[in-house]
Each structure stands twice: as structure tokens, then as C-alpha cells.
């Protein structure tokens, strides 16, 4: 299966999503056929990593023990300028309507997940620190 971040991507921190070689549609969540034209020609490619936060939620409860010591945990829904809406780990101080940049983070087990940070350089540099505590391997096991 080449349809999850943990197995389908080359090692990278830039935002890469599945782009259709036939119709250029950017697809997310990962899948095997293009959702627009159904062509079997999806390639992981670098895409415009900017988007606008549509909504923010703060979890005070998680079904996975890995999050227990790190609550509340912030996630956001982000409309990417390249098309899809993604759910991402969100830098906690960001509000609805803000422009953010998406990148992929990777844990020691090479699981990658989407992270949204402010689009200023300070945010981009400091962002991963609030993620370090989490053992993503456990979450994605």
C-alpha cells in the first residue's frame, strides 16, 4: 500500500501530496486513484505549502495514551492554496483565518504527519519543539 504517509513518501520535510499526472488534481487524504478523474497516475510531488486555517479544536481528551501527558493538544483544519483541506497538528497560538505553512514532521519510526505553523520565520524555526514530546510511533502503530 502506497497510500499512507508512513510508507508512501520519500524522506522529506517539504509538503508533498499526491498529484495526478493526467488532470493535475492535488489529492488528500492519500489514495490510490485520482479522486477527480480516477486515473491511476498519482505522483508524490512538492506542492504550495500555504493555507488558511478554517477551524481550530483543542483536545482535552484522547483515545490514545500517547497523548495523555500532552493535553490539551491543538489541531486545525486548513484549506490549502493547492486545493485540499487537511487536518494538521497546529501551533497552539494560531487562530482561525490565519495563514499558515504546512510541513511534514517525522518521528524516529519514519512516520510523517502534517504540521501547520505561522508563516513567519520565527514560528517556522521554533515550531517542532512543541511536537518533540509526542511518540508518534505509538500513535500510528
Amino acid at each position, binding site marked *: 500500500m502506497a497510500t499512507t504517509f508512513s510508507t508512501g513518501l520519500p524522506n522529506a520535510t517539504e509538503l508533498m501530496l499526491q498529484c495526478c499526472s493526467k488532470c493535475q488534481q492535488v489529492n488528500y*487524504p*492519500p489514495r490510490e486513484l485520482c479522486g477527480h478523474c480516477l486515473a491511476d497516475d498519482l505522483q508524490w510531488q512538492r506542492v504550495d505549502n500555504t493555507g488558511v486555517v478554517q477551524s481550530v*479544536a483543542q483536545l*482535552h481528551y484522547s483515545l490514545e495514551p500517547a497523548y495523555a501527558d500532552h493535553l*490539551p493538544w491543538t*489541531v486545525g*483544519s486548513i484549506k490549502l492554496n493547492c486545493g485540499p483541506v487537511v*487536518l494538521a497538528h497546529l501551533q497552539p497560538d494560531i487562530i482561525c483565518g490565519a495563514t499558515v505553512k504546512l510541513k511534514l514532521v517525522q518521528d524516529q519510526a519514519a512516520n510523517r*504527519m502534517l504540521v501547520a505553523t505561522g508563516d513567519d520565520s520565527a514560528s517556522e524555526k521554533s515550531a517542532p519543539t512543541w511536537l518533540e514530546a509526542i511518540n508518534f510511533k505509538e500513535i500510528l502503530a
Partner: protein
Amino acid sequence: MSTPASYRGIALVTPVSLGYSKTSEHSASWYIGSVLREMIAAAGIAKNDVDGLAISSFSLAPDSVSFLTQHYDMTLRWLEQLPFGGASGILAMRRAARAVQHGDADIVACIGGDTAGQGSFRDLVADFSSFSNSASYPYGSGGPNTAFALITRHYMDTTGATREDFGRLAVSQRYNAQHFKGALLGDKPLSMQDYLAARSICTPLHLFDCVMPCAGGEGFLLMSEERARALDLPFVTILAADERHNAFPDDPMQLRGGWPLFVEQLYADAGVTTDDIDLVQTYDDYPVISMLQLEGLGFCEEGKGPDYVRATDLRFDGVGLPHNTSGGQLSNGQAGAAAGYLGLVESLRQLTGTALSNQVPGAQHAMVSGYGMINYDRGLCSAATILARGTD
């Protein structure tokens, strides 16, 4: 586009709700079979008179509806298994009605049933769908709370809805549940103060915005009106029904289900208006979704749900519009796919005058709505039906 043919001649009878409990040692097949037994007894028919079975369950695996024929020792000629969560009841009803209209079956048992055990809810949502597994669950692992917290926040930002507005739904439903025997939370009063003081779950959602996963079963028998009369059963008819899947996919956030795509035709087919509706049952996995249904089903304009619930008495014995008259899932618990039957089955009790202490006096017409299947960021299935008390 063509429109649904009439459901004339079809009768819904013998509403059954049973076995609600927080956890259960029983299997889903126990819940489904128990509902079947109670419906057969209520109808005064033999088990072999049932020749069709429509089942919805999240916890039936590795069994399926096919295997259940052997569990219950039945020879059937029509089977359906409908994986539509909160839209299961209405979708089963639509398909079973066509089967009976066209002679593929005479009496169809439509049943939603699920069990619940320690950790079973986590197991369900942690492996719910491929999209959810890769693109939703890993982000905080909140289950459906996360998607609905995001939808709720967006709805609040867009419409000006406050927590009190959602509280009006939860509090009035708890009042209704206090008059419905069997509601899991019916013996626990809920005030607006209690609602607002509840602990955070996934903000903006707090405890009383979230349904409690539980076990339970719901069902009804579907047959010809002629058969229902011959059996001397009080019955309900289908004036109109429709469904949509993955409506408005380009909306970045869900602010509407599929209802606006068919609601006008629904009322036209039924020959009634919102003024004729005596009670409404929305699928209330979270209060915001009930708001979307009140708007999408024409009780108020899009985005005006908050104004509507501020101005409308939603209690079963109030002066406004009785809403979720047995307490909905928020007060009964969410019994898996049975939750997709709850509002429909309650409406059958109301329209046959068998609803005991939460009866809406003289109820003639009910609007029932279904919503389900959070694949990634929104519910994909929307369904609705307008039902009428059968005439003697």
C-alpha cells in the same frame, strides 16, 4: 433529474427500542435478534412470516446479515446490510419499501443493533476508514469529537452561535428523556448551568455536547398497508423520503448536509409544509448537526439555527416544535448503528399514539432526519423522511 416514486401502500409498524446499557456482555446478534423477537410478538405474526431482513451494525463482524439467517433459523428471500451509521434507519426503510412495493418481500424487519464493551469504541474509531486512519485519527486521536469540534467552531464563527444555543438542544432533550422510560440518562436532570459548567472534551465541545457510546437495539417491521390493516396494527405511512451522499464536497468545512438538495421536493412529494410537522427528530450526534438539520429541513434559514432555538420551545409538551422527543442520542446514548434508527422508531411510537408519557398529543406528521459516516472531516450521508399517522 428524476424524483423518488410514491411510497404509497407501505406501512411501518411495531416500533421497538431495547437494551440500552453503557456496556454489554451480549453480542450484536443478541441485540438484533431480541428486537426481531419483540417485533414479531407485537405484530402477532409467526417468525416465518418475516421474509426480508435489513440490518445495520458496527459490531456484528465477523458475522453479517447472511449469517444471521442461520442464527435465527430463518429462510428469507430479501436481505440488506446497510453501513450508513446515522442514516441507516431511513435508508433501510427506503430500500425495504421498494422491495415490498415490487413483490421482492412481504414483511421486512428493519433493525439496527450494536453491543458495546470496554475499549470497543476506541477500536471502532481507530480503524474506521482508510481516510480516517491516515488523515484524521493520528491528529490527536480524539475520534469523532475532533471533526465535530472543528465543525462546531466554524459554525459558531460563521453564525454567531453560542454555547447556550447548543445547550438549549441538550437541555430540552434531557427534559424529554426524563419522560421516556429506557433513556440511559433520563434519571439525570440537566440544567443550562450544568451544561455550561461541564468539563472540556475537545473545545468548543464539552461533556454534554458528546454522546455516550452504548449498546442497544432499535427496529420496526415494514409491510403493506393492507397487511397492517389485516393484522389490526396501528401503522405509519411514508409521505416522502430521500437521501444524498457527499453533498457539497467543495465546502471547505461542513456548514450544510445534503438536505438542501432535496428538501423542496420532499415537502412537495409529501403535500405538506413545515407548519404541518408536529414533531421533528434530528440525528444529534452533536448539537451542531441538529442545527444543520433544522436549517436544511426548512424550519429556519441557513445559518439561522441559533435564532430558531432561542425562539422555539423544543420540549415534547411545549408550545413550539417537539424535537427529539425521547431525548435523542444525547440523552439515550449512541448505540452504534441503532442510533441511526432512534428518531425513526420514536416517531413511529409518536404517530401510532403508543409513546406513553412523552406522547405529543394528536401527532399526525413527523419529520425524521438521518446523518452519518464521518470518513474524514464531515458526515457523508444525509437522509430525511416525512411520515404520517396511518388512517383507520
